Structure formats: C-alpha cells, structure tokens
C-alpha cells in the first residue's frame, strides 16, 4: 500500500471521534410528522435489545394515548417522573438525577425537542440528554423534522404552523445514529383516519391543516434530506479520520501491530487512546508471513475483524508481506517516520520463547531509537495449537506425491551418466537441486517427499554395495545424513518462499479487484448499478455465478444484479437469502446454516444495517481466502447500496412532490383562468338584466363589450387547454408542406391585430427566404401564441414579427420591447404553468409550452433570449436545413 504514506489522519477529526467514544452514543429516531411511529419503533428496538440482555431504562415515554405504543411499554423499567416547580402549580418532568444515578446502558428519552418546566435544571430536554451522554449513557430519543432549528422556518412556511420547541442542528449532527422513520403520506393519513394518532375529532381538523397530503409530502422530503445529509456528514467525518483529504501532521506517529488473536482488539483500543492523548495519527499493520497462510478460518475472520476495528477507530491500516515480523515491522516504521510502536505480548512459556523466539524481544532488540510499548495481554481465551507449524499445511494430493517422485526419477537419470566422472558424494548435489525445484514449484510437502525419495534412491543406486540399502563406506553414511539434513532445510525455506509469493500474488489481485470495483461503485447512480457492478466483478474474480439482492423495506429482498441474464433463485434460495439479510450471517454452501444449498449467501453490511445480500454458486465451494476477498468486496458494495438507496428514496419523493406541485398549479390555473372571464360575463349580464333601463348607453355598450371580450378570452384558454391535452395524448400530427414564411407571418400579424388593439405589430421578413416545410395550422398557432405572450408581457412598445436566414435554416422571431426575461429563466418559461414570477401578468402559463410542443412536432427548435439592441425579449422558432424545401 504505497499510497498510504501520503494519507495522514487529521488529529482534529480523531479528537472528535475520541470525544464521541468516551461519551454515550446518541441515536435519534427522526420522523416527518407526529404519528409516523417513532416512539413505537424506539420501543420495539429497545425490546429487542432488552431480550439480548442490554440494560435499558426509560426516562420518559410519551404514548399520546396510542394503544399500540402503550403495549410496548410493558416490562420496561421507567424512572418515575419528578415534581418540579413551586407548590400549588406542581408539574412533572423526567427525573434526570435518578436516571443518572441509575446509570443504565441505554436510556430512552422520548421527544427530544421538549421544553422543560421552569425550575428544572436545564430549560430544554436535549440538554438533559447531553448530560446523560456525557455520563457515558447511550441515549435513544425521538424527533420530528419540524423541531430542527434550521428547518423551523421552512416547516412553518409549508404548514403555516410555527413550532416553538426547537433543537439546535448541532445536536443532530452529533448524533451517532439517525434512524429515519418513514411512512408515506397516504399511510399516515390512513392512520389518522383510523384514529391511531389523535382522537377522531382532532384528527379531522388535523387532516385539513397540518396533515394535508401536500404538507406531508414536503415534510417527508425534508426529513429524508436531513437524514441523507447526516449520513454524508458521517461518511465525510469517517473519511477524514482515516486520513483522506487531511493535511500532513508532523510530530507523533503511532504504529500498532495486529494479529489474529482476540487480544489484539485490546491492543488496538489502547493504541487508539494513546493516539488520542497525543493527538497523533496512528497506523495499524499486520505482517503477513508464511505462517499467515496457515491460519484457520476463524483466525482469519478475527484478523480482518481486528483490522476493521482499527479502521473504524480511525487508524490507517495496512497489511505488509514479509518473512520476519519484527524486521518487516521496523522497516515499515522507519519508512513512515513512526515515533512509537505498540505491540501486545502474549503469555507464553519461557521454553516456547527459547525455541521459537519472541517477536516482541526481537522488536525491542532491534528497534533502535523507536520506543516500543508492550501491552501485556490477559484475555487469550482461544486454545492455541501446541505446535504452530502443524496448523494448516497445503493439502497433500496423490498428484503432488507423483510429481515429487517423478522429480526423484529425473534426478536419478541425470546423475546416472555423471557417475562416471564425479565422486559419489558429489552426486547428492544433483538430488539437492531436484529437492529445491520441487519445493519451490510444488511446496513444502513435495520438497520433503522428494528429499526422502532422493535419499533412498541415492542409497540404492550409488552407494556401495550398489542396488542394496546397505551402506558399507562410513563416508557415504555421512553423505546421506548431510544430504537428508540439507534437503529438509531447503524444503522448508523454499516452501516458505513459495507461500509468500502466492500470498503476495493473491494480495495484489485482491487489491486490483477492490480498486476496480470501488471505481465502478463510486460512479453507480442507483442500487441496481451498484449491484450489477458487484455481480460482474465477483463472477469474474472467482469464476462463479453471482446474484446481488437489495433490501426492500424491512425484510424483503429483490434481485438487483446478476452475473448472467437468466439467473433465477428458487423459493428455498430466497428463503436462505432472507435469513442472511435478517440475521446478518452467511447461509448456504460452506456456511453453518443450510450448508447443503447450492448458493452461498453473505450479508452486505454497513455500519448501520444489512443493505443486501450477495449470493455465489460454483461447482466447488469457495476457499476461505476467496470468502474473505468476497467479504471485502461486499463491504464496499454495502456502503454504495445504502447511499444509492437513500438517494433513490429522495429522488422518488422529489418526483412525487413535483407531480403534486404540477397538479396544484394546473388546478390554480384552471380555477383562475376559467373563473375570471366567467365572473366578468356573469357580472355584466346580471347588471344588464337588473339595471338595464337605468344604465346610460355607453355603460350598456361597455358591459356588452365586456361579455364579448371575456367570452373570447375564455375561448382562447379552452383552445390552449385542448391543444395541451392533445399534445400530451400525442394525437396531433404535423402535416408538413412547403410554406412561404412571408405568407405565414402576414396571416399571423393580421389575426393578432384584433388582439393588439392600439399596439403596433410590425413585420420584418428577410427577402428571398426559401420555402419551409411546416404544418400551416400549427405554425400559425405557435406564432400567434408568441405574439399573444409578447402583448401580455410587454405593456407597451411595438411587437416585431419576423423571419431570417439562420445559420443553416430559417428562424421565425417575435420580439417585444418589455422587461425581457430574467436571467436563468430562458428554458424554464417554456415549461407549462411557468409564469414569469416577477411580471404580475396573468397568462395561462400554457402558451409557450404549446409553442414548444408544436415546434418539436414540426422538427423545429424554440428558444428565448433578451434583445441585444434594447430591452425586450426575442422568441425564436428555428427550422433546420432539412426543413427547407
């Protein structure tokens, strides 16, 4: 890991984390509105934890008379409330001191935003919670999004209800975990109607105001966005603690050595505390020697667990290949300017250390100027194999034996002609060479077998008397003994070298795979893309079939990615996968649960939850090493899945809100643009009827003109609505025919003249324009809409309707002398119901959308910009070269 040299963890970020670690952890159940089930969820979670043996005590729980919630309290220890305030007006509050004295593992404190009664220690409940956290008690609490200080205004604007009880954002940012309790607006409204949230009469009122569907969607989006922000924040904080984007910190640097023993975790924690005290960056490294290849599966798991723990606590981690732990460690430490090395010391007998040596002793002997801190280990519980070398040798196969024997035969054949010139004892060199080759290419076992076979062959063929196993010459006895000894040592050394080569190769391959995968995952925009990436990578890396299942809701899974098109999971496979998702443990082939299945399912875990499941299937099961590599890939994917999941939920909520907004504007437009002319017509008609004889002639005429004008206006609006509907339905077809631009414009100008009253519409058509293939009716209507728009938005000045040769085709333009278009609105104004915000003009908001729709039917492009020569806007319908006839 050469790049780790540049990544130094930021001391500040570590400090932040350290502070968070001695403190209790704060978990917040965040909801969009009352009644989504925060307290319920908190109580159910706490019940689970209680069953696992955790010491959970409630400081305060507000059931709001909801029976489902009240049922969960049963059996929960609740600290009795305390009377606060002066006599006569005694009120009850959470008894903070009693809770602190009780010092549970987890305290449940409902309603984080609550304001305490006067006379309490703190004015706000979140301050009480802060004190609990400082005392090292984990706190679970609930919060509605409208209570978050920075969102207070936004929520007030949405709901028209201002909430006075707020919680500073910093409290939320300091939370170690935020669980978003999500309920769709429809479900929540259903719950309200069933009287599960409020009493029925209150519920009715609530439904009309605070709980209007539009409000709920908006609140829900806010809650999701806030939760997503916090996750981002945490990821960023985590990254920073790991040293990415952190500046180089000179000074202290700690290095802790990790191995597969359980006690290593203790050493890691010690190192973390040490690092915090000296505000130093720290690294956790594991030296992978030949011995590492022989670790059992549980030992490997613990090793990666230890490394992961260090990573979580903010260490930079690395795995170093090497053959001697002490030397590799010291070389790395010097290279990295480490100022202190921390190692754990196992309890071992003096005899053991005399025979096998002690890494700790070697470290101390050779560390030179770097101080070494030795942490005595106490909790080595797992029974260690008596003779470590016997742990896990490469499997001995019959093919391996055959190859080893073949090497001996080759050596014998090579030695045969040499026998004439060389002394018998020199022939052992030939055999030694074959032992070396065997051990290097086929491993330790092969080397040893070749050694024994060679000793026998040498004895049989070359020592006097030949073709017997008896040895006459004492020299030869010595030669055989020396050979055997040499063969043994050569075998072990060469075997070890081979192990290291293999390990390094696998390591490099894993890093390459992980790097490639992580690049793919960062660019993945959806759960499915992330899942597909993982499936493809796993299939290629291990030559397996692979499926990735993403979590849907709380317990269901769906197939999100597969290595091949037609991979199907049976019902039983799905059940196994669900088990994995629920328990967070592997199932299937090679696992403890359902080992007979074809698939092996591993959980995709993030620090918060199981985001999905990866399943692999192959003729022969995965080796422990492969499983570890798979788990590493899974870890990366899990985070990507979670990120994608939150992003997706956010996007869906945004689309829903957008659709709701469009429906709202559509209704507003309908009600305004139809009602206004009707009001005019009805009023004028009823006035004529009631006072016909009392009105003077000009008034009468005016009223009649009103009726005509307003009816025409309504007609235009209805036409637009119809056009829009037909466009939406796709039922308009453009009948393209060659049209003369000047004809088209003349017709538009004369039709618009009636609308313009005393405003001037000027024609400005370039001479000798080619014919344009367009639909006469559509083009006429589109240009008419543009003129109408110009008349409405520019209160005075002339309107210029023109056509010019554009770069490659012909462009029709309508220019006015009004205020022009606000910067950035050039595209938005073509969207339906997008009225210019500032203008105060009551257009239908449909005209330009129709222009765009008609233009695209004819293959033309619309655009809008401000005039260069003076104030005002120019709208253009541009026909490309292909449209010229």
């Amino acid at each position, binding site marked *: 890991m050469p790049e780790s040299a540049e990544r130094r963890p930021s001391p500040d970020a570590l400090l932040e984390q350290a502070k968070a670690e001695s403190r209790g952890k704060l978990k917040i159940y965040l909801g969009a509105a009352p009644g989504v089930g925060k307290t319920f969820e908190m109580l159910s979670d706490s019940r689970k934890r209680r069953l696992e043996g955790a010491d959970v005590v409630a400081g305060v729980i507000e059931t709001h008379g909801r029976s489902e919630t009240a049922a969960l309290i049963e059996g929960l220890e609740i600290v009795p409330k305390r009377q606060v305030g002066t006599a006569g007006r005694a009120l009850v509050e959470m008894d903070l001191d009693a809770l602190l004295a009780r010092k549970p593992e987890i305290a449940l404190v409902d309603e984080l935003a609550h304001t305490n009664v006067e006379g309490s220690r703190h004015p706000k409940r979140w301050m009480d919670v802060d004190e609990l956290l400082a005392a090292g008690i984990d706190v679970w609490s609930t919060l509605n999004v409208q209570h978050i200080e920075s969102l207070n205004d936004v929520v007030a604007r949405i709901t*028209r209800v201002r909430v006075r009880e707020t919680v500073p954002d910093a409290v939320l940012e300091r939370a170690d975990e935020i669980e978003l309790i999500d309920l769709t607006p429809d479900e929540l409204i259903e719950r309200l109607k069933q009287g599960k949230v409020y009493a029925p*009469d*209150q519920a009715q*009122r609530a439904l009309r105001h605070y709980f209007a569907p539009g409000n709920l969607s908006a609140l829900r989006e806010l809650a999701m966005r806030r939760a997503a922000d916090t996750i981002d924040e945490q990821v960023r904080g985590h990254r920073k603690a790991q040293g990415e984007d952190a500046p180089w910190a000179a000074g202290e640097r700690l290095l802790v050595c990790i191995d597969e023993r359980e006690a290593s975790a203790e050493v890691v924690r010690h190192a973390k505390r040490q690092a915090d005290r000296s505000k130093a960056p720290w690294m956790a490294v594991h030296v992978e020697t030949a011995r590492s290849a022989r670790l059992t599966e549980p030992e490997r798991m613990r090793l990666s667990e230890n490394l992961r723990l260090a990573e979580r606590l903010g260490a930079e981690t690395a795995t170093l290949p090497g053959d001697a732990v002490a030397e590799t460690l010291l070389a790395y430490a010097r290279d990295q300017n480490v100022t202190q090395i921390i190692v754990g010391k196992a309890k071992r007998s003096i005899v053991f250390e005399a025979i096998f040596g002690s890494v700790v002793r070697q470290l101390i002997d050779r560390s030179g100027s770097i101080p070494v801190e030795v942490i005595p280990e106490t909790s080595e519980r797992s029974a260690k194999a008596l003779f470590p070398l016997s742990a896990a040798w490469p499997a001995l196969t019959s093919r391996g034996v055959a190859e080893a024997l073949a090497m001996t035969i080759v050596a014998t054949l090579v030695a045969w002609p040499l026998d004439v010139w060389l002394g018998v004892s020199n022939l052992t060199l030939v055999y030694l060479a074959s032992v070396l080759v065997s051990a290097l290419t086929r491993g330790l076992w092969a080397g040893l077998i070749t050694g024994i076979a060679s000793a026998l062959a040498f004895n049989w063929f070359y020592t006097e008397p030949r073709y017997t196993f008896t040895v006459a010459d004492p020299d030869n006895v010595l030669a055989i003994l020396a050979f055997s000894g040499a063969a043994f040592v050569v075998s072990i050394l060469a075997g070890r070298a081979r192990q290291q080569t293999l390990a390094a190769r696998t390591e490099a391959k894993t890093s390459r795979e992980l790097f490639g995968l992580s690049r793919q995952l960062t660019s993945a925009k959806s759960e499915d893309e992330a899942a597909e990436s993982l499936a493809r990578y796993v299939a290629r890396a291990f030559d397996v079939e692979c499926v990735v299942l993403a979590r849907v809701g709380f317990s269901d899974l769906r197939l999100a990615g597969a290595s091949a098109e037609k991979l199907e999971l049976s019902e039983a496979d799905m059940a196994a996968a669900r088990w994995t998702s629920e328990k967070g443990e592997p199932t299937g082939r090679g696992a403890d649960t359902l080992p007979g299945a074809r698939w092996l399912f591993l959980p995709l875990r993030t620090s918060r939850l199981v985001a999905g499941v990866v399943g692999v299937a192959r003729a022969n099961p995965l080796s422990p090493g492969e499983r570890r590599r798979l788990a590493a890939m899974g870890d990366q994917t899990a985070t990507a899945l979670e990120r994608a999941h939150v992003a997706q939920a956010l996007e869906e909520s945004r689309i829903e809100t957008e659709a709701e907004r469009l429906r709202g504007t559509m209704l507003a437009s309908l*009600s*305004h643009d139809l*009602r*206004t*002319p*009707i*009001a*005019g*017509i*009805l*009023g*004028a008609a*009823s*006035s004529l*009827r*009631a*006072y016909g004889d*009392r*009105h003077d002639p000009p*008034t009468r005429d*005016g*009223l009649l003109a*009103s009726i005509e*004008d*307003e009816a025409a206006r309504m007609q235009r609006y209805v036409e637009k609505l119809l056009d829009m509907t037909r466009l939406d339905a796709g039922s308009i077809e453009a009948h393209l025919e060659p049209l003369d631009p000047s004809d088209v414009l003349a017709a538009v100008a004369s039709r618009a003249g009636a609308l313009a009253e005393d405003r001037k519409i000027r024609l400005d058509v370039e001479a000798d324009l080619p014919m344009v293939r367009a639909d006469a009716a559509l083009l006429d209507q589109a240009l008419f809409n543009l003129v109408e728009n110009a008349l409405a938005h520019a209160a005075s000045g002339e309107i210029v309707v023109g056509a010019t040769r554009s770069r490659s085709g012909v462009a029709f333009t309508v220019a006015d002398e009004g205020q022009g278009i606000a910067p950035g609105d050039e595209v938005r104004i073509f969207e339906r119901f997008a009225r210019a915000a500032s203008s*105060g003009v*009551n257009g239908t908001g449909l005209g330009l959308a129709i222009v765009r729709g008609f233009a695209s039917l004819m293959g033309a492009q619309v655009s809008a910009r401000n005039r260069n020569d003076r104030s005002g806007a120019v709208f253009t319908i541009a026909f490309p070269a292909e449209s010229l006839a």
Partner: protein
Amino acid sequence: MSDHSERRSPGQRLRALIVDDEAAIRRFLRSVLVAEAFDVEEASDIAGALKLAAGLRFDLAVLDLGLPDGNGADLIAPMRAAGAPAVIVLSALDDEPRKVAALDAGADDFVSKPFGVAEFMARVRAALRHRVQMQGGPPVYNDGRLSVDLARRIVTVAGVDPRLTPREYSLLHELILHEGKVLTHRHLLTRAWDGSDADVQALRVHIRHLRQKIEPRPDQPSHVLTEPGVGYRFVRTEE
C-alpha cells in the same frame, strides 16, 4: 332597492371604491353601483387604492384579494384608518383561508367569484345596514316566530322560552347583532366565549343545540347558516 340612501339626507351620496385588476369586473361593478346611486372610484392595484384612500372618504370598499402587487386584505387596515367603510372582499370560491383572514382583518363580508348583481347588492346592503346599526342601541329582533330582545336578553320561539344555555344565548346574541353578516369561527369563539380558547368542534356542537332550539327545521336551518370553512351567518326570515 336603495334603502340605505333613504337614511341619508338627500344629496349626500355614498362613495364606493372598487379595487380589482380585472377591467371587466371593475366595469360591471361600476355599472351596478352607479345604478344604485353611488359615487364610484376605481383602482387596479394596492398602490392605486392607497392613493385614492388618502384623499377621499369612502363608505364602501370592494376589494379583490388577488391583486398584482399583493393581497387586497392588506388594504383593510389603512382603509379603516382613513374612514370606516363597509368592506366586501371578492375571492375565489375555494380560497377559505384567505377569506377567513380577510374577515378576521375586519372585512364585513365576502362574495365568491363568479357572482351576480343580486348576491352582491344583498351583501353590500347587509354590510351598510350593520354599519348604521352599530351606531344605534341594541335592537329587538322579531320575525313573528323568533323574537330576541337583545337589551333584556329575552328569547321566545312562537311565544315559548326555548331555554337557551348562556353559551347558546351569547352565540345567538352575537349572530343577531351582525345579522346578515358572516362571522368567522374565531370571531364567534373569542366574542361569544369570553375569550376562552375553545375548539371549533365545541362551537359546532353549540350551534347544533342552538339550531335545535330556535330553527323551525333544525336539519334545514333557515336562520343560522353555515359558511363552509369560514363560519356562520344569521339570516332574517320573513313570513
């Protein structure tokens, strides 16, 4: 038709201000009010209306709520400061929140667009009558069947005491005092309830009880009418 003018000395005409951004509406309202012998001024936005209100005393203001430069209800306070006109607001049919806000801000009544001359003038008359009544002492209401003496607090229905509770009486009192005018929930809750912060739900219950005691057919009320989403209105019935 123009009963209000009879109470004034002849020659003293009432002056009305119309504020609406739609020319067609202004034209029609003007025609009606001119026919009813008002002097009429017009404005198309808040700025124009404020300019007119600064120089003239108005007896009636007709305000559209959706004006280009703001909410017409914002005009109510300055208009009140300049004189004491009856205020009718024009609003969309389904815009209850703005109606209620305008009424709470002091508007006398509202008319939902679209509307006819008869409806409009009925509201105008009720509003103007109310202005006059406020200057006299508490009147006696009597339509032959229902009779309420607001000064002596005596209620009879067809000659019999309906035995109203104090709350029901104060509701009826408030409604009759503003006969023909819509009163918002909040208005009724704060005026008839001694300022206690009771729920709209409770108000509905009391109205129901009141109807059972004074209405000829409580399920089809003819006196205490519901204005959905806004409040209640007391209407005189003539035999």
